[in-house]
């Protein structure tokens, strides 16, 4: 089965054959990746997404850093920073941080699970699958947990002079979560999902 595809970066048309597993097709004119055939995409992405949701819960419930200075200890979870910004009249920044470090990563994991679990059992997700999948593809660039990690590192170094920093349980699950999120993104094959949605319809 040949499928027609246009390069999303230079609009060149191709008739792509079914790609061998693990290979990618690149545009001969501009070099953009047209399509990748990922090995066991559905199963792998599902597994990573479930692991991701568990880690996400841990990362949000427990404190990720604590600051200790002269007998005073202050712990912080992901959401406390957002709350503080909001209280200080930095509402727009608070909303941006909430979306990029909490809501969008969560929706991405939950949305991936919502899409792939039914597809795995050859069914359609029950509520507007195309809309949900489009939405999780749209928010993907705005889910910035790995950038948040760099933020944690910089803050830890900055504060190390002022007080002692104690890493919390959430920090460890946070670090793993970043790799899991990367694995979700790397193993997901959007072309496969769109094809399956058409087949199951």
């Amino acid at each position, binding site marked *: 089965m040949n499928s*027609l*595809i*246009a390069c*999303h*970066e*230079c*609009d*060149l*048309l191709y008739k792509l054959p079914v790609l061998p597993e693990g290979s990618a097709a690149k545009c001969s*004119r*501009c*070099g*953009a990746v047209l399509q990748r055939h990922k090995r066991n995409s559905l199963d792998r992405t599902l597994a990573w997404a479930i692991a991701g949701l568990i880690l996400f819960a841990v990362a949000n419930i427990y404190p990720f*850093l604590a*600051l200790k*200075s002269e007998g*005073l200890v*202050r712990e*912080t979870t992901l959401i*406390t*920073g*957002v*709350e*503080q*910004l909001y209280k*200080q009249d*930095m509402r*727009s*920044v608070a909303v*941006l*941080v909430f979306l*990029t*470090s909490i809501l969008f990563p969560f929706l991405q994991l939950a949305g991936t699970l919502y899409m792939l679990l039914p597809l795995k059992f050859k069914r359609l997700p029950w509520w507007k699958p*195309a*809309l949900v*999948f*489009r939405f999780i*593809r*749209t928010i993907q*660039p*705005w889910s*910035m947990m790995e*950038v*948040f990690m*760099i*933020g*944690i590192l*910089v*803050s830890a*170094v*900055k*504060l190390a*002079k*002022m*007080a002692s920093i104690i890493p919390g349980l959430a920090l460890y699950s946070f670090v793993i979560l970043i790799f899991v999120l990367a694995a979700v993104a790397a193993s997901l094959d*959007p*072309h496969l999902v*769109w094809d399956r*949605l*058409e087949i199951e319809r």
Partner: protein
Amino acid sequence: MKQGFPTALDNSLVSCHSCHLVSKAPAVHGKGEMICPRCGSVLHQRKPRSLSRTWALVIAAFIFYIPANVLPITKVTSLGHAQSDTIMSGVIYFLQTGMWPIALVIFIASIFVPLAKLFILTFLLISVQRKWQWRPKDRTRLYRITEAIGRWSMTDIFVVTILVALVKLGALATIDAGPGAIYFAAVVVTTIFAAMSFDPRLIWDSMETNHE
């Protein structure tokens, strides 16, 4: 067919932005929108008003960039003594205390990346408007880079968030976010939207029309 490079546009086909399905564009261009038969998003041959939107966002980001760097992003109050820091003074502080890797990270993420992005986008916009023929492949690559690096500018916003949350030690020390943080967040968001609204296919469109 031009130069042996058939594009979707030449064949009156439209490629969907969101699911990449190639479908037939309706011949009549009425007021009605074209809808992708597979995923339901609105179809466009090219991103709508790509150049003017990208220009608007780039100019807005250049403007926000000034208060983002001039105004303080954090205010540290320690034992009654207050000190305001801008992005650059933070970098200088790290340099002076010998922590140059951190200084480098902040400099690249907060100062270099947004500016580089804005200059690259400006260059791409001008090159498309003037229909330059210069190295389309490299220009597409430049676009790909601007798309990929933008998110890393959020680092400083996250640092401010974490500092504000952690440093609340009563009279000992507190850190508050400064107005610069709002403008800096605006720079990050507008540059990301600017990169999204630019359509790299325009680089190739002008290559083709000039060959005819």
